[in-house]
Protein backbone atom coordinates (compact mmCIF):
# COMPACT_ATOMS: atom_id res chain seq x y z
CA UNK A 1 0.00 0.00 0.00
CA UNK A 2 2.82 2.38 0.84
CA UNK A 3 6.20 2.45 -0.74
CA UNK A 4 8.80 5.02 0.19
CA UNK A 5 12.11 5.18 -1.61
CA UNK A 6 15.19 7.22 -0.63
CA UNK A 7 13.13 9.91 0.97
CA UNK A 8 15.15 12.91 2.10
CA UNK A 9 14.26 16.28 3.56
CA UNK A 10 16.60 19.17 4.16
CA UNK A 11 15.62 22.27 6.09
CA UNK A 12 18.29 24.73 5.04
CA UNK A 13 21.56 22.98 5.82
CA UNK A 14 19.94 20.72 8.41
CA UNK A 15 19.15 17.20 7.26
CA UNK A 16 15.86 16.19 8.88
CA UNK A 17 15.42 12.95 6.95
CA UNK A 18 18.37 11.44 5.15
CA UNK A 19 17.30 8.63 2.85
CA UNK A 20 14.45 6.59 4.27
CA UNK A 21 13.06 3.59 2.36
CA UNK A 22 10.46 1.06 3.37
CA UNK A 23 7.36 -0.78 2.17
CA UNK A 24 4.10 -1.47 3.92
CA UNK A 25 1.34 -3.86 2.88
CA UNK A 26 -2.31 -4.13 3.81
CA UNK A 27 -2.76 -5.87 7.15
CA UNK A 28 0.48 -4.52 8.59
CA UNK A 29 0.85 -2.14 11.50
CA UNK A 30 4.16 -0.34 11.38
CA UNK A 31 5.49 1.32 14.50
CA UNK A 32 7.73 4.35 14.07
CA UNK A 33 10.15 4.70 16.94
CA UNK A 34 12.83 7.22 17.58
CA UNK A 35 13.97 9.96 19.93
CA UNK A 36 12.46 13.43 19.68
CA UNK A 37 13.60 15.23 16.57
CA UNK A 38 14.64 12.02 14.83
CA UNK A 39 12.54 12.79 11.76
CA UNK A 40 9.44 10.70 12.48
CA UNK A 41 6.95 13.53 12.06
CA UNK A 42 8.76 14.94 9.03
CA UNK A 43 8.64 11.53 7.35
CA UNK A 44 4.92 11.20 8.08
CA UNK A 45 4.23 14.72 6.82
CA UNK A 46 5.94 13.84 3.56
CA UNK A 47 3.99 10.60 3.16
CA UNK A 48 0.70 12.43 3.73
CA UNK A 49 1.64 15.06 1.16
CA UNK A 50 1.76 17.95 3.60
CA UNK A 51 5.37 18.83 2.90
CA UNK A 52 7.22 18.00 -0.30
CA UNK A 53 10.41 15.94 0.10
CA UNK A 54 13.77 17.28 -1.05
CA UNK A 55 14.19 14.05 -2.99
CA UNK A 56 12.79 10.54 -3.13
CA UNK A 57 9.59 8.78 -4.12
CA UNK A 58 6.33 8.11 -2.31
CA UNK A 59 3.69 5.74 -3.62
CA UNK A 60 0.37 5.29 -1.89
CA UNK A 61 -1.68 2.48 -3.38
CA UNK A 62 -1.10 2.84 -7.11
CA UNK A 63 -0.64 6.61 -6.97
CA UNK A 64 2.45 8.78 -6.81
CA UNK A 65 2.06 11.33 -4.01
CA UNK A 66 4.31 13.87 -5.71
CA UNK A 67 2.83 13.80 -9.20
CA UNK A 68 -0.73 12.73 -8.54
CA UNK A 69 -1.45 13.89 -4.98
CA UNK A 70 -5.26 14.02 -4.93
CA UNK A 71 -6.07 10.30 -5.43
CA UNK A 72 -3.12 9.41 -3.18
CA UNK A 73 -4.39 11.71 -0.42
CA UNK A 74 -7.89 10.28 -0.80
CA UNK A 75 -6.57 6.89 0.32
CA UNK A 76 -4.99 8.25 3.50
CA UNK A 77 -6.44 9.07 6.88
CA UNK A 78 -4.12 11.28 8.91
CA UNK A 79 -3.87 12.20 12.55
CA UNK A 80 -1.26 14.98 12.80
CA UNK A 81 0.89 15.51 15.86
CA UNK A 82 -0.99 17.30 18.68
CA UNK A 83 -4.30 16.38 17.01
CA UNK A 84 -5.36 19.79 15.66
CA UNK A 85 -9.03 20.57 15.05
CA UNK A 86 -11.20 23.64 14.46
CA UNK A 87 -11.97 24.69 18.01
CA UNK A 88 -14.89 26.94 17.00
CA UNK A 89 -16.87 23.96 15.66
CA UNK A 90 -18.87 21.28 17.44
CA UNK A 91 -17.60 17.71 17.32
CA UNK A 92 -20.45 16.73 15.00
CA UNK A 93 -19.92 19.76 12.80
CA UNK A 94 -16.20 19.09 12.53
CA UNK A 95 -16.67 15.44 11.62
CA UNK A 96 -19.35 16.41 9.08
CA UNK A 97 -16.88 18.88 7.55
CA UNK A 98 -14.18 16.20 7.38
CA UNK A 99 -16.65 13.79 5.74
CA UNK A 100 -17.59 16.41 3.13
CA UNK A 101 -13.94 17.11 2.40
CA UNK A 102 -13.61 13.38 1.75
CA UNK A 103 -16.38 13.63 -0.81
CA UNK A 104 -19.15 12.13 1.31
CA UNK A 105 -22.60 13.70 1.40
CA UNK A 106 -26.18 13.00 2.41
CA UNK A 107 -26.83 9.56 3.85
CA UNK A 108 -23.24 8.35 3.34
CA UNK A 109 -21.94 11.33 5.31
CA UNK A 110 -24.35 10.70 8.19
CA UNK A 111 -23.36 7.05 8.31
CA UNK A 112 -19.65 7.85 8.24
CA UNK A 113 -19.98 10.36 11.07
CA UNK A 114 -21.99 8.05 13.31
CA UNK A 115 -19.60 5.18 12.64
CA UNK A 116 -16.56 7.29 13.58
CA UNK A 117 -18.36 8.70 16.62
CA UNK A 118 -19.15 5.22 17.81
CA UNK A 119 -15.63 3.90 17.26
CA UNK A 120 -14.06 6.79 19.15
CA UNK A 121 -16.65 6.98 21.95
CA UNK A 122 -17.72 10.54 21.21
CA UNK A 123 -21.52 10.21 21.64
CA UNK A 124 -21.54 12.27 24.82
CA UNK A 125 -19.84 15.30 23.32
CA UNK A 126 -21.30 15.26 19.81
CA UNK A 127 -22.99 18.66 20.14
CA UNK A 128 -20.33 20.25 22.29
CA UNK A 129 -17.96 22.90 20.98
CA UNK A 130 -14.44 21.50 20.56
CA UNK A 131 -12.83 24.30 22.57
CA UNK A 132 -14.74 23.20 25.67
CA UNK A 133 -13.44 19.63 25.49
CA UNK A 134 -10.68 17.99 27.51
CA UNK A 135 -7.48 17.00 25.76
CA UNK A 136 -8.46 13.34 25.55
CA UNK A 137 -11.73 14.15 23.79
CA UNK A 138 -10.05 16.57 21.38
CA UNK A 139 -7.55 13.90 20.56
CA UNK A 140 -10.25 11.37 19.87
CA UNK A 141 -12.16 13.90 17.78
CA UNK A 142 -9.16 14.33 15.51
CA UNK A 143 -8.67 10.57 15.48
CA UNK A 144 -12.31 10.15 14.42
CA UNK A 145 -11.66 12.60 11.60
CA UNK A 146 -8.82 10.40 10.31
CA UNK A 147 -10.99 7.28 10.03
CA UNK A 148 -14.15 9.02 8.78
CA UNK A 149 -13.78 7.75 5.20
CA UNK A 150 -12.63 4.26 6.23
CA UNK A 151 -9.26 4.83 4.54
CA UNK A 152 -7.03 2.04 3.25
CA UNK A 153 -4.01 3.76 4.79
CA UNK A 154 -3.86 5.31 8.25
CA UNK A 155 -1.03 7.53 9.37
CA UNK A 156 -1.10 8.40 13.04
CA UNK A 157 1.43 10.71 14.65
CA UNK A 158 1.53 9.82 18.35
CA UNK A 159 -2.07 8.63 18.56
CA UNK A 160 -1.93 7.87 22.29
CA UNK A 161 -0.15 11.04 23.37
CA UNK A 162 -1.97 12.79 26.19
CA UNK A 163 -4.50 10.05 26.81
CA UNK A 164 -5.12 8.37 30.14
CA UNK A 165 -4.28 4.64 30.50
CA UNK A 166 -7.84 3.51 29.73
CA UNK A 167 -8.05 5.65 26.63
CA UNK A 168 -4.62 4.46 25.56
CA UNK A 169 -5.81 0.91 25.83
CA UNK A 170 -8.91 1.69 23.77
CA UNK A 171 -6.94 3.43 21.04
CA UNK A 172 -4.43 0.58 20.92
CA UNK A 173 -7.07 -2.06 20.52
CA UNK A 174 -8.74 0.12 17.88
CA UNK A 175 -5.48 0.33 15.94
CA UNK A 176 -4.89 -3.38 16.28
CA UNK A 177 -8.40 -4.17 15.05
CA UNK A 178 -8.18 -1.80 12.10
CA UNK A 179 -4.69 -3.07 11.30
CA UNK A 180 -6.19 -6.32 10.03
CA UNK A 181 -7.69 -4.62 6.98
CA UNK A 182 -5.58 -1.48 6.56
CA UNK A 183 -1.99 -0.42 6.28
CA UNK A 184 -1.18 1.62 9.38
CA UNK A 185 1.86 3.66 10.33
CA UNK A 186 2.02 5.15 13.79
CA UNK A 187 4.71 6.85 15.76
CA UNK A 188 5.16 6.57 19.49
CA UNK A 189 7.59 6.94 22.35
CA UNK A 190 6.00 4.11 24.27
CA UNK A 191 7.82 0.88 23.54
CA UNK A 192 5.29 -1.45 25.13
CA UNK A 193 2.79 -0.02 22.66
CA UNK A 194 4.91 -1.27 19.79
CA UNK A 195 5.00 -4.76 21.26
CA UNK A 196 1.27 -4.73 21.87
CA UNK A 197 0.13 -3.42 18.49
CA UNK A 198 2.76 -3.57 15.75
CA UNK A 199 3.53 -6.31 13.33
CA UNK A 200 6.70 -4.44 12.41
CA UNK A 201 8.77 -1.63 13.87
CA UNK A 202 11.21 0.86 12.41
CA UNK A 203 13.61 2.78 14.58
CA UNK A 204 14.66 6.14 13.20
CA UNK A 205 17.57 8.12 14.53
CA UNK A 206 18.83 11.40 13.12
CA UNK A 207 16.83 10.97 9.95
CA UNK A 208 17.93 7.43 9.16
CA UNK A 209 16.43 4.01 9.71
CA UNK A 210 18.68 2.22 12.19
CA UNK A 211 16.53 -0.88 12.73
CA UNK A 212 13.64 -2.49 10.85
CA UNK A 213 11.97 -5.73 11.85
CA UNK A 214 9.26 -7.42 13.90
CA UNK A 215 9.29 -6.50 17.59
CA UNK A 216 10.58 -10.01 18.36
CA UNK A 217 13.44 -9.67 15.88
CA UNK A 218 14.39 -6.32 17.34
CA UNK A 219 14.29 -7.59 20.88
CA UNK A 220 16.66 -10.38 19.88
CA UNK A 221 19.25 -7.71 19.19
CA UNK A 222 19.22 -6.53 22.80
CA UNK A 223 22.26 -7.38 24.97
CA UNK A 224 20.23 -9.54 27.31
CA UNK A 225 18.40 -11.48 24.61
CA UNK A 226 18.87 -15.25 24.97
CA UNK A 227 20.52 -15.01 28.40
CA UNK A 228 19.46 -17.66 30.94
CA UNK A 229 18.65 -16.42 34.42
CA UNK A 230 18.57 -18.85 37.34
CA UNK A 231 17.46 -18.27 40.90
CA UNK A 232 18.28 -20.74 43.68
CA UNK A 233 16.86 -21.49 47.09
CA UNK A 234 20.32 -21.81 48.62
CA UNK A 235 23.98 -22.22 47.66
CA UNK A 236 26.99 -20.11 46.84
CA UNK A 237 26.37 -17.89 43.81
CA UNK A 238 30.06 -17.62 42.89
CA UNK A 239 30.64 -21.37 42.87
CA UNK A 240 27.51 -21.95 40.83
CA UNK A 241 28.61 -19.31 38.35
CA UNK A 242 32.02 -20.94 37.97
CA UNK A 243 30.38 -24.34 37.27
CA UNK A 244 28.01 -22.83 34.73
CA UNK A 245 30.83 -21.08 32.95
CA UNK A 246 32.32 -24.51 32.29
CA UNK A 247 29.41 -25.55 30.05
CA UNK A 248 30.26 -25.29 26.34
CA UNK A 249 27.23 -23.13 25.39
CA UNK A 250 28.02 -20.37 27.92
CA UNK A 251 30.06 -17.34 26.93
CA UNK A 252 29.96 -15.51 30.24
CA UNK A 253 28.17 -15.88 33.57
CA UNK A 254 27.28 -12.97 35.81
CA UNK A 255 26.27 -13.03 39.45
CA UNK A 256 23.24 -10.78 39.83
CA UNK A 257 22.67 -11.34 43.53
CA UNK A 258 24.38 -13.32 46.36
CA UNK A 259 21.37 -13.83 48.58
CA UNK A 260 19.17 -15.26 47.23
CA UNK A 261 21.68 -16.52 44.67
CA UNK A 262 20.77 -15.32 41.17
CA UNK A 263 23.06 -15.81 38.17
CA UNK A 264 22.68 -14.94 34.51
CA UNK A 265 24.45 -16.95 31.81
CA UNK A 266 24.97 -15.49 28.34
CA UNK A 267 25.03 -17.87 25.34
CA UNK A 268 27.92 -17.97 22.85
CA UNK A 269 25.53 -17.10 19.99
CA UNK A 270 21.89 -15.96 20.12
CA UNK A 271 20.91 -19.27 18.45
CA UNK A 272 22.49 -21.35 21.23
CA UNK A 273 20.19 -19.85 23.89
CA UNK A 274 18.08 -23.01 24.16
CA UNK A 275 21.22 -25.23 24.30
CA UNK A 276 22.43 -23.13 27.20
CA UNK A 277 19.10 -23.44 29.00
CA UNK A 278 19.15 -27.20 28.56
CA UNK A 279 22.75 -27.47 29.78
CA UNK A 280 21.98 -25.34 32.83
CA UNK A 281 18.97 -27.49 33.62
CA UNK A 282 20.96 -30.74 33.37
CA UNK A 283 23.80 -29.32 35.43
CA UNK A 284 21.36 -28.25 38.14
CA UNK A 285 19.99 -31.79 38.30
CA UNK A 286 23.49 -33.29 38.52
CA UNK A 287 24.64 -30.88 41.22
CA UNK A 288 21.29 -31.09 43.10
CA UNK A 289 20.86 -27.30 43.09
CA UNK A 290 17.53 -26.06 44.42
CA UNK A 291 16.42 -24.17 41.33
CA UNK A 292 13.44 -21.91 42.04
CA UNK A 293 13.31 -20.14 38.71
CA UNK A 294 14.89 -20.62 35.29
CA UNK A 295 14.00 -18.52 32.29
CA UNK A 296 15.38 -17.28 28.99
CA UNK A 297 15.46 -13.49 28.65
CA UNK A 298 13.56 -12.22 25.60
CA UNK A 299 15.47 -8.98 25.49
CA UNK A 300 13.79 -5.66 26.00
CA UNK A 301 12.88 -3.15 23.31
CA UNK A 302 13.96 -0.38 25.69
CA UNK A 303 17.50 -1.73 25.73
CA UNK A 304 17.79 -2.06 21.98
CA UNK A 305 16.21 1.37 21.55
CA UNK A 306 18.70 2.97 23.89
CA UNK A 307 21.71 1.14 22.56
CA UNK A 308 21.09 2.17 18.94
CA UNK A 309 19.86 5.71 19.45
CA UNK A 310 22.09 7.03 22.22
CA UNK A 311 24.75 9.37 20.88
CA UNK A 312 27.60 7.73 22.83
CA UNK A 313 26.97 4.30 21.34
CA UNK A 314 27.64 5.32 17.77
CA UNK A 315 29.70 2.21 17.01
CA UNK A 316 26.62 0.01 17.46
CA UNK A 317 24.89 1.91 14.67
CA UNK A 318 27.40 0.79 11.99
Amino acid at each position, binding site marked *: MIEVRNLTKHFGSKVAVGGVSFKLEKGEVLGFLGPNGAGKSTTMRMITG*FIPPTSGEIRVGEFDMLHNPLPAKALIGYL*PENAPSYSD*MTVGGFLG*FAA*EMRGLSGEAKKKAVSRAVEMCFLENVLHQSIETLSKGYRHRTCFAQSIIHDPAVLILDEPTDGLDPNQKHEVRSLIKRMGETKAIIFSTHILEEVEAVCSRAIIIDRGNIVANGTPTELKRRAVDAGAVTLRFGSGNAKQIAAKLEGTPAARKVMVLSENPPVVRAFPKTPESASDLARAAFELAGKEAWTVEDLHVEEGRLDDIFRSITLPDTKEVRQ
Partner: protein
Amino acid sequence: MNFTLNSQRHIWTIAKRELIGFFASPVAYVFVVVFLLLSGFFTFMIGGFFERGQAGLEPFFVWHPWLYLFLVPAMGMRMWSEERRMGTIELLLTFPITPWQAIAGKFFAAWTVIGLALLLTFPLVITVNYLGSPDNGVITASYIGSFLMAGAYLAVASMTSAMTRNQVVSFIVSVVACLFLILAGWPPVTNLLSSWASPVVVDAIASFSVMAHFDAIQKGVLDTRDLLYFVSVIVFCLFTTSVIIRAHRAG
Protein backbone atom coordinates in the same frame (compact mmCIF):
# COMPACT_ATOMS: atom_id res chain seq x y z
CA MET B 1 -12.94 9.29 -9.38
CA ASN B 2 -13.16 12.67 -10.99
CA PHE B 3 -11.48 15.26 -8.84
CA THR B 4 -12.10 18.32 -10.99
CA LEU B 5 -15.87 17.89 -10.74
CA ASN B 6 -15.59 17.99 -6.97
CA SER B 7 -13.69 21.26 -7.10
CA GLN B 8 -16.64 23.59 -6.62
CA ARG B 9 -18.08 21.41 -3.91
CA HIS B 10 -14.81 21.54 -1.98
CA ILE B 11 -14.65 25.32 -2.28
CA TRP B 12 -18.21 25.52 -0.99
CA THR B 13 -17.49 23.11 1.89
CA ILE B 14 -14.52 25.21 3.00
CA ALA B 15 -16.42 28.48 2.59
CA LYS B 16 -19.29 27.06 4.63
CA ARG B 17 -16.92 26.06 7.42
CA GLU B 18 -15.35 29.51 7.42
CA LEU B 19 -18.76 31.17 7.57
CA ILE B 20 -19.73 28.98 10.52
CA GLY B 21 -16.49 30.10 12.16
CA PHE B 22 -17.22 33.76 11.44
CA PHE B 23 -20.69 33.60 12.93
CA ALA B 24 -19.76 31.29 15.83
CA SER B 25 -17.22 33.90 16.93
CA PRO B 26 -18.06 37.61 17.14
CA VAL B 27 -15.89 38.40 14.08
CA ALA B 28 -18.74 38.67 11.57
CA TYR B 29 -21.07 40.60 13.89
CA VAL B 30 -18.36 43.02 14.95
CA PHE B 31 -17.40 43.63 11.36
CA VAL B 32 -20.95 44.29 10.20
CA VAL B 33 -21.86 46.51 13.14
CA VAL B 34 -18.65 48.53 13.10
CA PHE B 35 -18.89 48.96 9.35
CA LEU B 36 -22.45 50.22 9.58
CA LEU B 37 -21.71 52.57 12.49
CA LEU B 38 -18.59 54.05 10.95
CA SER B 39 -20.04 54.44 7.48
CA GLY B 40 -23.09 56.12 9.02
CA PHE B 41 -20.91 58.44 11.04
CA PHE B 42 -18.77 59.46 8.05
CA THR B 43 -21.73 59.82 5.73
CA PHE B 44 -23.89 61.99 7.96
CA MET B 45 -21.51 63.80 10.30
CA ILE B 46 -18.50 64.43 8.10
CA GLY B 47 -19.77 63.84 4.59
CA GLY B 48 -22.71 66.21 5.09
CA PHE B 49 -25.23 63.89 3.49
CA PHE B 50 -28.21 66.16 4.16
CA GLU B 51 -26.47 69.53 3.93
CA ARG B 52 -25.32 68.87 0.38
CA GLY B 53 -28.85 69.09 -0.90
CA GLN B 54 -28.14 66.51 -3.61
CA ALA B 55 -29.76 63.12 -3.99
CA GLY B 56 -26.73 60.82 -4.27
CA LEU B 57 -24.54 58.51 -2.26
CA GLU B 58 -21.12 60.10 -2.95
CA PRO B 59 -20.67 61.12 0.71
CA PHE B 60 -21.18 57.45 1.58
CA PHE B 61 -18.91 55.81 -0.97
CA VAL B 62 -16.09 58.33 -0.81
CA TRP B 63 -15.06 57.00 2.61
CA HIS B 64 -14.96 53.35 1.63
CA PRO B 65 -11.27 53.14 0.65
CA TRP B 66 -10.40 54.45 4.13
CA LEU B 67 -12.95 52.43 6.04
CA TYR B 68 -11.85 49.21 4.39
CA LEU B 69 -8.24 50.08 5.12
CA PHE B 70 -8.68 48.93 8.72
CA LEU B 71 -11.77 46.78 8.67
CA VAL B 72 -10.86 44.40 5.85
CA PRO B 73 -7.38 43.50 7.14
CA ALA B 74 -8.99 42.92 10.54
CA MET B 75 -11.37 40.54 8.82
CA GLY B 76 -8.70 38.71 6.84
CA MET B 77 -5.82 38.60 9.31
CA ARG B 78 -6.83 35.26 10.80
CA MET B 79 -7.50 33.58 7.47
CA TRP B 80 -4.23 31.61 7.28
CA SER B 81 -2.30 32.66 10.36
CA GLU B 82 -4.88 30.99 12.57
CA GLU B 83 -4.62 27.77 10.55
CA ARG B 84 -0.88 27.82 10.99
CA ARG B 85 -1.01 28.66 14.68
CA MET B 86 -3.54 25.93 15.46
CA GLY B 87 -1.89 23.38 13.18
CA THR B 88 -5.15 22.80 11.32
CA ILE B 89 -3.40 23.73 8.08
CA GLU B 90 -1.90 20.24 8.26
CA LEU B 91 -5.37 18.74 8.20
CA LEU B 92 -6.67 21.08 5.54
CA LEU B 93 -3.83 20.48 3.11
CA THR B 94 -3.78 16.71 3.54
CA PHE B 95 -7.42 16.44 2.53
CA PRO B 96 -7.76 15.46 -1.14
CA ILE B 97 -8.09 19.07 -2.31
CA THR B 98 -5.80 21.51 -4.05
CA PRO B 99 -4.45 24.51 -2.10
CA TRP B 100 -6.36 26.68 -4.61
CA GLN B 101 -9.67 25.32 -3.44
CA ALA B 102 -8.80 26.13 0.17
CA ILE B 103 -7.62 29.63 -0.74
CA ALA B 104 -10.71 30.36 -2.81
CA GLY B 105 -13.09 28.94 -0.21
CA LYS B 106 -11.64 31.04 2.57
CA PHE B 107 -11.56 34.14 0.40
CA PHE B 108 -15.17 33.83 -0.74
CA ALA B 109 -16.39 33.24 2.81
CA ALA B 110 -14.84 36.46 4.12
CA TRP B 111 -15.91 38.36 1.01
CA THR B 112 -19.47 37.20 1.60
CA VAL B 113 -19.47 38.72 5.09
CA ILE B 114 -18.22 42.02 3.67
CA GLY B 115 -20.89 41.83 0.99
CA LEU B 116 -23.48 41.26 3.68
CA ALA B 117 -22.34 44.38 5.56
CA LEU B 118 -22.57 46.34 2.32
CA LEU B 119 -26.06 45.03 1.61
CA LEU B 120 -27.22 46.13 5.04
CA THR B 121 -26.61 49.75 4.06
CA PHE B 122 -29.76 49.53 1.89
CA PRO B 123 -31.70 52.02 4.09
CA LEU B 124 -29.43 54.72 2.62
CA VAL B 125 -30.58 53.83 -0.87
CA ILE B 126 -34.20 53.96 0.23
CA THR B 127 -33.61 57.32 1.95
CA VAL B 128 -32.09 59.04 -1.09
CA ASN B 129 -34.84 57.65 -3.28
CA TYR B 130 -37.43 58.96 -0.84
CA LEU B 131 -35.83 62.40 -0.58
CA GLY B 132 -35.08 62.94 -4.23
CA SER B 133 -34.48 61.18 -7.50
CA PRO B 134 -30.87 59.95 -7.58
CA ASP B 135 -29.19 58.16 -10.46
CA ASN B 136 -29.67 54.58 -9.34
CA GLY B 137 -27.32 53.36 -12.07
CA VAL B 138 -24.50 55.32 -10.44
CA ILE B 139 -25.43 53.89 -7.03
CA THR B 140 -25.43 50.31 -8.37
CA ALA B 141 -22.05 50.85 -10.06
CA SER B 142 -20.66 52.32 -6.83
CA TYR B 143 -21.81 49.30 -4.84
CA ILE B 144 -20.16 46.97 -7.34
CA GLY B 145 -16.97 49.03 -7.24
CA SER B 146 -16.95 49.12 -3.46
CA PHE B 147 -17.45 45.36 -3.24
CA LEU B 148 -14.63 44.74 -5.73
CA MET B 149 -12.34 47.10 -3.84
CA ALA B 150 -13.07 45.25 -0.60
CA GLY B 151 -12.19 42.03 -2.46
CA ALA B 152 -8.85 43.51 -3.50
CA TYR B 153 -8.05 44.49 0.09
CA LEU B 154 -9.15 41.09 1.30
CA ALA B 155 -6.87 39.35 -1.18
CA VAL B 156 -3.98 41.46 0.14
CA ALA B 157 -4.93 40.43 3.69
CA SER B 158 -5.05 36.78 2.61
CA MET B 159 -1.53 37.10 1.27
CA THR B 160 -0.09 38.73 4.40
CA SER B 161 -1.98 36.28 6.59
CA ALA B 162 -0.23 33.38 4.88
CA MET B 163 3.15 34.93 5.67
CA THR B 164 2.96 34.64 9.45
CA ARG B 165 1.29 32.78 12.28
CA ASN B 166 0.98 36.05 14.19
CA GLN B 167 -2.30 37.82 13.50
CA VAL B 168 -1.05 41.23 14.67
CA VAL B 169 1.86 41.14 12.24
CA SER B 170 -0.50 39.99 9.52
CA PHE B 171 -2.86 42.89 10.26
CA ILE B 172 -0.18 45.59 10.28
CA VAL B 173 1.51 44.38 7.10
CA SER B 174 -1.78 44.23 5.23
CA VAL B 175 -2.81 47.72 6.41
CA VAL B 176 0.50 49.07 5.10
CA ALA B 177 0.08 47.23 1.79
CA CYS B 178 -3.49 48.49 1.40
CA LEU B 179 -2.36 51.98 2.32
CA PHE B 180 0.08 51.80 -0.56
CA LEU B 181 -2.80 50.84 -2.87
CA ILE B 182 -4.62 54.00 -1.75
CA LEU B 183 -1.76 56.46 -1.55
CA ALA B 184 -0.21 55.57 -4.89
CA GLY B 185 -3.05 57.44 -6.56
CA TRP B 186 -3.94 59.97 -3.88
CA PRO B 187 -3.46 63.51 -5.26
CA PRO B 188 -1.18 64.81 -2.45
CA VAL B 189 1.18 61.88 -3.05
CA THR B 190 1.04 62.02 -6.84
CA ASN B 191 1.77 65.75 -6.69
CA LEU B 192 4.78 65.09 -4.52
CA LEU B 193 5.99 62.36 -6.86
CA SER B 194 5.58 64.52 -9.97
CA SER B 195 8.05 67.06 -8.56
CA TRP B 196 10.94 64.66 -9.20
CA ALA B 197 9.65 61.77 -11.34
CA SER B 198 8.61 61.88 -14.98
CA PRO B 199 4.85 61.93 -15.64
CA VAL B 200 5.05 58.45 -17.16
CA VAL B 201 6.39 57.03 -13.91
CA VAL B 202 3.83 58.92 -11.83
CA ASP B 203 1.02 57.63 -14.04
CA ALA B 204 2.37 54.10 -13.86
CA ILE B 205 2.48 54.20 -10.06
CA ALA B 206 -0.92 55.85 -9.85
CA SER B 207 -2.44 53.15 -12.01
CA PHE B 208 -1.68 50.66 -9.22
CA SER B 209 -3.92 52.63 -6.93
CA VAL B 210 -7.46 51.67 -6.09
CA MET B 211 -8.36 55.35 -5.95
CA ALA B 212 -8.33 56.13 -9.66
CA HIS B 213 -10.28 52.97 -10.49
CA PHE B 214 -12.79 53.38 -7.70
CA ASP B 215 -13.34 57.05 -8.59
CA ALA B 216 -14.10 56.12 -12.17
CA ILE B 217 -16.64 53.51 -11.10
CA GLN B 218 -18.18 55.92 -8.58
CA LYS B 219 -18.96 58.26 -11.45
CA GLY B 220 -21.14 55.50 -12.83
CA VAL B 221 -18.79 54.24 -15.52
CA LEU B 222 -18.25 50.48 -15.29
CA ASP B 223 -15.19 50.38 -17.52
CA THR B 224 -13.75 46.93 -18.27
CA ARG B 225 -10.27 48.24 -17.43
CA ASP B 226 -11.33 49.23 -13.92
CA LEU B 227 -13.07 45.92 -13.34
CA LEU B 228 -10.06 44.12 -14.75
CA TYR B 229 -7.83 46.04 -12.35
CA PHE B 230 -9.68 44.83 -9.26
CA VAL B 231 -9.98 41.29 -10.55
CA SER B 232 -6.29 41.15 -11.38
CA VAL B 233 -5.30 42.47 -7.94
CA ILE B 234 -7.44 39.72 -6.40
CA VAL B 235 -6.06 36.98 -8.64
CA PHE B 236 -2.47 38.14 -8.20
CA CYS B 237 -2.70 38.29 -4.40
CA LEU B 238 -4.44 34.93 -4.12
CA PHE B 239 -1.85 33.41 -6.42
CA THR B 240 0.89 34.88 -4.20
CA THR B 241 -0.92 33.36 -1.22
CA SER B 242 -0.60 29.93 -2.80
CA VAL B 243 3.09 30.54 -3.52
CA ILE B 244 3.70 31.58 0.10
CA ILE B 245 1.86 28.55 1.44
CA ARG B 246 3.81 26.23 -0.82
CA ALA B 247 7.12 27.85 0.16
CA HIS B 248 6.23 27.57 3.82
CA ARG B 249 5.47 23.86 3.47
CA ALA B 250 8.68 23.21 1.57
CA GLY B 251 10.58 24.68 4.54
